[in-house]
């Protein structure tokens, strides 16, 4: 094996330290016995227990999950449809404008998106709450879904759909029976992306929320303004754990699928 030079080792260490030191500190202090965040007083899991007894946090967690599930599902449906039209409709007048407008919210400052949505909801006289956050998250998450799905559709063999039509499918059946199952991994990763974006969004949620709906990021942010408590550390650690488990699981599933496909192909070659 090639050994790293001292320069490479140092820059690697510094880089990882830069990325992960804050998080490690947070995780370590979440197991701190002391109420004071910066003073170590021994190992304890009591803050986790206290967190689970705190109804306000549990409510916020429930709101967050609800918002994330609904908005990511809605965003996936809309984003997939938009991607399908953009990739498949060929050249129609206004295509460039349309695709530009789909991707523009990706680079739009969140504050502006949030503010404009707030003005819209006030103008339409809609009561702000879970419903408005779901709408807001859907609008920005569908751009991300659309990007992920359209990159998959570009490499999708068009003749598969033509074959489905040729064999008697209507256009919708061809999409449901052939296109969707094949692009499903991209659609699922689009959903996961939308779910994560919704889970950790603070800015847009705080613009569009009402008194009845407090999401976890809003809860954490407002709690921290009163001072960092070990309880918040525990909550953050749990969120890190959830995200890590999700990401690792997703990558293992993807890798397994790739490995088994490669193995099947090898078997086919030997059989010839």
């Amino acid at each position, binding site marked *: 094996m090639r050994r790293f030079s001292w320069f490479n080792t140092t820059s690697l260490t510094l880089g990882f330290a830069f990325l992960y030191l804050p998080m490690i500190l947070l995780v370590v202090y979440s197991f701190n016995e002391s109420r004071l965040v910066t003073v170590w007083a021994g190992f304890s899991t009591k803050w986790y227990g206290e967190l689970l007894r705190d109804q306000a946090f549990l409510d916020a967690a429930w709101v967050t999950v609800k918002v994330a599930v609904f908005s990511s599902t809605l965003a996936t449906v809309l984003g997939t449809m938009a991607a399908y039209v953009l990739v498949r409709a060929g050249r129609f007048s206004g295509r460039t404008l349309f695709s530009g407008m789909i991707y523009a919210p990706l680079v739009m400052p969140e504050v502006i998106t949030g503010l404009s949505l707030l003005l819209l909801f006030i103008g339409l006289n809609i009561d702000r709450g879970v419903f408005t956050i779901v709408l807001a998250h859907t609008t920005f998450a569908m751009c991300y879904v659309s990007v992920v799905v359209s990159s998959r559709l570009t490499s999708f*063999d068009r*003749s*598969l759909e*033509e*074959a*489905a*039509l*040729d*064999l*008697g*499918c*209507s256009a919708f*059946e061809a999409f449901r*029976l*052939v296109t969707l*199952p*094949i692009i499903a991994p991209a659609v699922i990763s689009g959903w996961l992306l939308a779910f994560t974006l919704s889970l950790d969004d603070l800015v847009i949620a705080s613009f569009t929320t009402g008194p009845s709906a407090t999401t976890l990021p809003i809860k954490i942010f407002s709690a921290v303004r009163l001072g960092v408590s070990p309880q918040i550390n525990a909550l953050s650690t749990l969120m890190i754990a959830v995200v890590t488990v999700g990401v690792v699981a997703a990558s293992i599933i993807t890798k397994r699928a790739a490995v088994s*496909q490669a193995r*099947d*192909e090898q*078997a*086919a*070659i030997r*059989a*010839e």
Partner: protein
Amino acid sequence: MAQTVFAPWTDPDQKPIIEFRNVTKTFGEFTAIHDLSLNIYEREFFALLGPSGCGKTTMMRMLAGFETISSGHIFLSGQDIGAIPPNKRPVNMMFQSYALFPHLSVWENIAFGLKRESRDRDQIAARVEEMLRLTRLTKFAKRKPHQISGGQRQRVALARSLAKAPKLLLLDEPLGALDRKLREETQFELMDIQEKTGTTFVIVTHDQEEAMTVASRIAVMDEGHLVQVATPAEIYEAPNSVYVADFIGDVNILQGRATPQGDGVSIDWAEGQPPIRAATDTTFSPGQACHFAVRPEKVTIDVERPDRPNTFRGKVIDIAYLGNISTYHVELAGGHRMKAQMVNARRLANRQITWEDEVWVGFTDTAGVVLEE
């Protein structure tokens, strides 16, 4: 045993299964098909042959319903199919890339079309089994497309497109992805299956050998026009133009001026060379410019002057040895070159003629065709 020759196109009472009537197809400024009319008959194995960009794939896609017709009509069994969407046409297509559904097994791929039209499970299962037997895929029914070889995939694609018993099967370069040996085997398999099922096949190909092997008739296309539509033998022996002669097989093409003489013409083609005597049905006016095309295998090569209507003296400058045959490139006086092909009946060591030898090339007056400019 008397066998009637299959040639419905010569029978004026036969109704064509497909009729292109003055079909034109344009893509923006570009005209892919120019005012084209063509009849294809039931049980034919019809080949559309031409270089890439000649419009043959567009013709096929219009038959399948993936391209609209700009003007003109296409009739299938007498019905104008211009406005019928692809999923409602009794036509199936085998795609160049096979387009097998990767998420479905071989069995499910073949059953896909059947499930769209019928709910009877037993009937579907019976039909799929029949197709699997026909294409010798029974063992692979449960495999996914990526778990089988290229040749097997090709057969799955064929089975899937035949499962619905279409009136017409379209094959888009069906053997392009196979290696040479497998391709030759598969050509005969295709002909066999076509005969067994009695389906009309239309195949698109750029491979002239493939078209010659499988087709009952070949349409040679160039830039959206049909150049010649005829049986493989006619196309080869009696091409109607320099384009066809040159596209199919190897050929010597000489340019000259024709003078009517007896039941043929005499062609002055080079300074200092005797004129070529050639039989032809076409009438030429004296001095009319023409091309003379003769296949290398119809040109003989000898050390002594042979007793033939056309003989020319020359020098061997190149020999292409292909095992069973050799092609001799002979330079005639005046710099013209002619290719002559000989079967290698003797072993290579006993070959009489070699490089730089003075030889005679010769051919009969019916060996070649005279083509108008």
